[in-house]
């Protein structure tokens, strides 16, 4: 979804997603160093888990909400997994651990490993289907304090009963972990449920260079119907808008 006309737009640095630049001795999947260098992140806000995308973090008041459910929507190759992986790496860099529940059996973090990301504290759980993925999330969130972030990467289109969603929400709330659900549905489709605290619609933009466009479709504890303005380095890289 395009941001509403007239809303001020927030831009991330031009290197929110670095284009491939093969380094000597490596092949073309290696992500190049950030340029210009991203500013050092602000100290982690209470109850927030930074995503590593400064503009998005600033807009969300520090990052993804801990103890809450975040839904990231977008079609194939939209960049939703990239956003979630960035949050995982940020959690690991901050000394925690993250879990990626892979029901699609295709998660392949080669670029992250070759870029030197600390993926050794990234736990990947391969589950046979979406129902098993929810069960794995239940187990991980039930072990309070085990991980800071649980990403549920679904194979099909996400659908979940209200009861299961309530249970996951309670578990996340008790342990303080952020639960991120990657939903392959089109951006216009309905949300997972009323307990989703943050809903992001992601699509990849390419206008000469790579970029990510994020619409904040729902933000329960954030600004209501307002947008935040930062100096626009490149308006076409990372666009944020709130529809609430």
């Amino acid at each position, binding site marked *: 979804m395009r941001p509403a006309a007239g809303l001020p737009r927030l831009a991330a640095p031009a290197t929110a*997603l*670095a*284009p*491939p630049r*093969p380094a000597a001795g490596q*092949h*073309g*999947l290696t*992500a190049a*160093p*950030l340029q210009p260098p991203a500013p050092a992140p602000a*100290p*982690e806000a209470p109850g927030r888990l930074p995503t*590593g*995308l400064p503009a998005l973090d600033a807009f969300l008041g520090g990052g993804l909400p801990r103890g809450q459910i975040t839904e990231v929507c977008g079609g*194939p*190759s*939209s960049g939703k*997994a*990239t956003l979630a*992986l960035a949050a995982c*790496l*940020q959690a690991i*860099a*901050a*000394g*925690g*651990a993250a879990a990626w529940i892979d029901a699609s*059996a*295709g*998660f*392949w*973090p*080669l670029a*992250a*490993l*070759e*870029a030197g*990301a600390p*993926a*050794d*504290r*990234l*736990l*990947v*759980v391969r*589950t*046979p289907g979406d129902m098993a993925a929810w069960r*794995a999330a239940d*187990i*991980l969130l*039930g*072990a309070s*304090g*085990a*991980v800071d972030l649980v990403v549920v990467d679904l194979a099909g289109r996400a659908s979940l009963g209200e009861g299961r969603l309530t249970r996951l929400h309670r578990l996340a709330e008790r342990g303080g972990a952020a639960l991120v659900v990657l939903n392959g549905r089109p951006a216009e489709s309905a949300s997972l449920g009323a307990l989703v605290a943050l809903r992001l619609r992601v*699509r*990849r*933009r390419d206008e000469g260079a*790579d970029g990510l466009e994020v619409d904040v479709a729902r933000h329960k504890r954030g600004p209501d119907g307002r947008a935040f303005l930062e100096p626009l380095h490149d308006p076409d890289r990372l666009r944020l808008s709130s529809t609430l």
Partner: protein
Amino acid sequence: MTRIACAFLPRFELALLARREGPGFWRQPAVIADLSASPALVREATPAAEQAGVCSGMTVAEARVRCGELSVHLPAPEARGQAEAQVLAALARLAPQLATDGHGAFFLGLSGMERLVRDERVYAARVEAALRPLGFAASVGIAGHPSAAWVAARRGVGPVAPGSDARFLASVPLAGLDLSEPARTLLALLGVTTAGQVVRLPRGTLGRRLGPEGERLDRLCRGELFPPETVPTAACVPRVPAAAGLDLPSPTDALEPILFLMKGLVGGLLARVAAERKALAELTIEAELEDAGRSRLVHRLSPAEPTLDVRLLVDLVRLWLERAPFADPLRSLRVVASKVAPAVARQLRLYTRRQDEGTAALDRALARLAAAFGPQAVVRPTLAPRYLPEGRVVWVEAQSGPEAPWGPRVEPPGGGPGEPGPRPWALRLLPVPEPVELTGGAPTPSAWVPGAPRLLVRRGQPPRRVLRIEAVQRRSGEWWEAPFDRSYAWVVCDGGERFWLFHDHRCGRLFLQAVAD
């Protein structure tokens, strides 16, 4: 007063052979030889071999000269270890503390058993009787010190009166000990015939004259032959794993009734384990099913750390049974505490930091995930040194415990949040490379001409307009195993979609390998 019994099994390794070959083996001239020594030495000899002039300590070559029919056998450490375990298990019924010297002497600690061992001769007879069914003819000595008990056992004198160990050792004639011929001759020439006379010699004299054999004799006569580890302790007592089981009156395959029964069994099992101040580290479940062949299932479950928590174990059982339910109704159930570890005082946990709690929680989660989905489903990615890009990500099984990479939480430098790391693409690897086509120009990415119109065609999907092709790179190698020669490239399509393609130069076709998501 400390009392120690020694059960001496003469010619222990030959006795193992005799158990296998039958009693007739003792009538044959045979030796156990230590071939690792240079020259090879006789370690044990049968009575028939000794009658032919062969004795322990002699070189094998000399023994063969003295006895042409001599059969030479090698030591069997594995069989010896098994036999020692059998003997220790038999002796564990008679004493709470055990030890062995590894050469056929087994020590039993009798401390605190004074009221049970009123007559030491009767006790010695009970020890001998306990080993007879195993095929060993033991002789038992009882004294206040391992050396005195060992000598008493070897000489068959039975119990040594309390407080008279030194007097007993001093009176032992050297002729009754296994000494080599040169040593025996030298000591006879010196007029030394008893252990007491050896003790009166200056310390170290015998070692200088007779070498290792003299040193050993010196230490034996002074009561210093056996090191402290041969003092019987409870650690050597073989543990019989605690187990509990029941037969179901009516076989069932329903999960909840099985878990209810399991909870009762595991609860009783843990009570027994806890009574030994231990915690359960591995639970073995043996289930007999009501099928035609009455098949038997054995499954082992390991909690993240040794535990005495019934709920946690039953929860692991639940996860396992939900993943792999019984194919037929359950007929009987048995649980065994197959591994235990010392229990840790709960109070210590009050002082552990939150990070340790987080690690422990992660360990628990790992154990539960492994039980629910199998250990291969819980992995972490590592980078492997491969030429083929698809082979560079290797998934290793995620282990719990202190050696796990996530171990304790890592605080970033300065205590604040870490520097923002790289933000690479998350990729989705296709299980099998998918053949694709690039239409409207040269078919390979390396032949791409900027500005030329082009479409990416995937089977069953609408064509996508290609904006550009990036990072073309040719890679080849691994000729020793599965040679390849490919050009990899990123194809950026309209709408920002990114596809990772390779052109296989060996077959001339284009394949889609991964998609950036």
